[in-house]
């Protein structure tokens, strides 16, 4: 049985308040592709302070444009965002709702699906199927890949970032329908953002390279001593010179500094850096792993990295064999010091 679907792409504005986020534009691409393939009606819903301005970027998509805007939607807050998204979905009469898996929409999408009597699946990495929609997602922390489908509607699908190209239609004047929202009492105030790092911001989602530091950086070196301070200097220098994003193994992120306090052994490292089974699975074009070791369950942080290289003293390490393109059996302290020197020279 095939019925005409109405697809709504839920989007939201970025920190400027007047432009769509990259993840939103990626979801617009997915929506345009799916609607064309299924012959479905497409609508784009925009949530944010100045949705009208943001709409110009997607005017060329040929979709019905709906917006919920105003001061209440400057802040990413459950009560207001859920009410706004619910209003957009009802206005669109959507049977399929696509949304980016951003922190803002991840926080509310399931609640909105429930309010509409619908269902939700998240972390979608691919959308296929012609007669019916079949989507791909991972289970067991990126260890099992499954293709699923649902007959129930409305069906909400949250897309992982980086799975589609960002929509890049010509900006144009857009006809946007304003959707009214009845806000519930708001008991939460968003006060701003806080970076846990004391000095440099080491998590850079848009970087081409992911640099992964493992626990080997804090182990005893050939001279019988640990050189944690030196390790920190080399890693930070590399991040500064290369613009790479920093990922960490769990074993390194869990390590605390000597003295029994809660300070991480490398002061710029937090659990936000952690990749793998209980951390994030970032998407970058390239990845360089250093001083990591472990078997398959620990290597899931690699799953969405394009080209992978590793520096390890263990040529047979399960982290690298069959998972990396190249493994250099070498001392990471020595190699990274020379890499930093080369990058420094190039910068100069």
């Amino acid at each position, binding site marked *: 049985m095939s019925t005409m679907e109405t697809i709504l792409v839920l989007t939201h504005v970025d920190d400027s308040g007047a432009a769509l986020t990259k993840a939103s534009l990626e979801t617009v691409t997915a929506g345009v592709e799916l609607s064309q393939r299924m012959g479905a009606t497409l609508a784009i819903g925009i949530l944010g302070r100045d949705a009208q301005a943001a709409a110009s970027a997607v005017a060329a998509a040929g979709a019905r444009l709906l917006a919920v805007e105003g001061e209440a939607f400057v802040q990413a807050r459950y009560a207001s965002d859920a009410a706004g998204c619910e209003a957009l979905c009802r206005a669109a009469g959507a049977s399929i709702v696509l949304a980016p898996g951003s922190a*803002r929409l991840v926080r509310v999408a399931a609640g909105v699906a429930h309010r509409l009597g619908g269902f939700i699946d998240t972390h979608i990495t691919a959308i296929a199927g012609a007669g019916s929609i079949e989507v791909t997602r991972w289970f067991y922390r990126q260890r099992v890949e*499954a293709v699923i489908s649902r007959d129930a509607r409305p069906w909400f699908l949250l897309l992982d970032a980086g799975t589609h190209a960002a929509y890049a239609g010509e900006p144009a004047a857009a006809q946007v329908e304003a959707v009214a929202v009845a806000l519930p009492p708001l008991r*939460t105030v968003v006060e701003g953002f806080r970076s846990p790092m004391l000095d440099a911001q080491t998590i850079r989602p848009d970087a081409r390279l992911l640099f992964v530091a493992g626990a080997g950086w804090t182990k005893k070196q050939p001279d019988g001593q640990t050189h944690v301070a030196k390790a920190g200097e080399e890693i930070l220098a590399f991040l500064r010179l290369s613009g790479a994003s920093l990922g960490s193994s769990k074993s390194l992120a869990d390590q605390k500094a000597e003295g029994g306090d809660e300070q991480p052994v490398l002061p710029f490292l937090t659990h936000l850096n952690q990749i793998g089974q209980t951390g994030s699975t970032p998407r970058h074009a390239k990845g360089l792993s250093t001083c990591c070791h472990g078997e398959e369950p620990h290597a899931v942080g690699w799953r969405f990295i394009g080209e992978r290289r590793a520096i390890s003293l263990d040529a047979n390490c399960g982290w690298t064999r069959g998972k990396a393109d190249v493994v250099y059996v070498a001392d990471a302290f020595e190699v*990274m010091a*020379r890499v930093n020197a080369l990058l420094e020279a190039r910068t100069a």
Partner: protein
Amino acid sequence: MSDPIALHIVVCAGIVPDPLQTLEPVSGPTGPGLKNEMVLPAVLDPWAGCALYEAARLAASVAGSKVWLVSLGPKAKLQQVMMTVGQKAAFELVPIDGPIGGFTDAHATAAALAEAIAALPGLDRERLLLFGGWESATRGAGVTLQLVGERLGIADQFQGVDQIAVREDGSFEVLERVEGGKHQVSVCAGAPAVLGWATGNLAEPRNNPQTGMQNMRSMMPALQKAKAVKLEANGLRYVSASLPKQQRETRVEKNMAPDAIACELVEWMAAE
């Protein structure tokens, strides 16, 4: 009489295969499952574990507070895991006897959890903080807690939480993970609220046999009386479930000098 801001903290936490186990999906009559799923060693879901330890810390810091642990899984498996978990934090176990695994539908799981929480004797919904992991290590969807919150009518929800600081007036500050390695800072007027925890800031507590004995008194009777539930599929259909097959041809360089490696890496990084 309890403190005016005493909290009733309900932690939703599932059990998952030990992360070090090899997992292999197999087809069953009701959809995919894991090979030898019932004999795989199980542990408390890691992020939900963080939520439990944060709940115990918070309850200990606010007089009159109480922690419930609501867990859905096969009764025998729950008993096995709780023997260890029960030594790490003080709580009252609310077991729900149901299927294990990540291939069940989150909406059905949420309905079972919400029903159990709504029926908790002595729970004051105005003091309720609903805790859990922001994602599970099985389904990893990050939606169950949100759905439970909606079913319980809670309109203040936070996900990817790393910190909560309760103030004297009962309001609290929450740090939630957002993009770019930052935290969003929010202040909520007070309970009720939903907090889906990331790692938080606490280390896993050491086993405390006294806490274990205390928990065990109520745990065993609760396990014996655990209500059995059947989870609906809600139209969810699995087309396939498989292990990723991608295996790379790894070039192993055993004898390159550090200078040569550095040159090669810098060239590789610069290449488009």
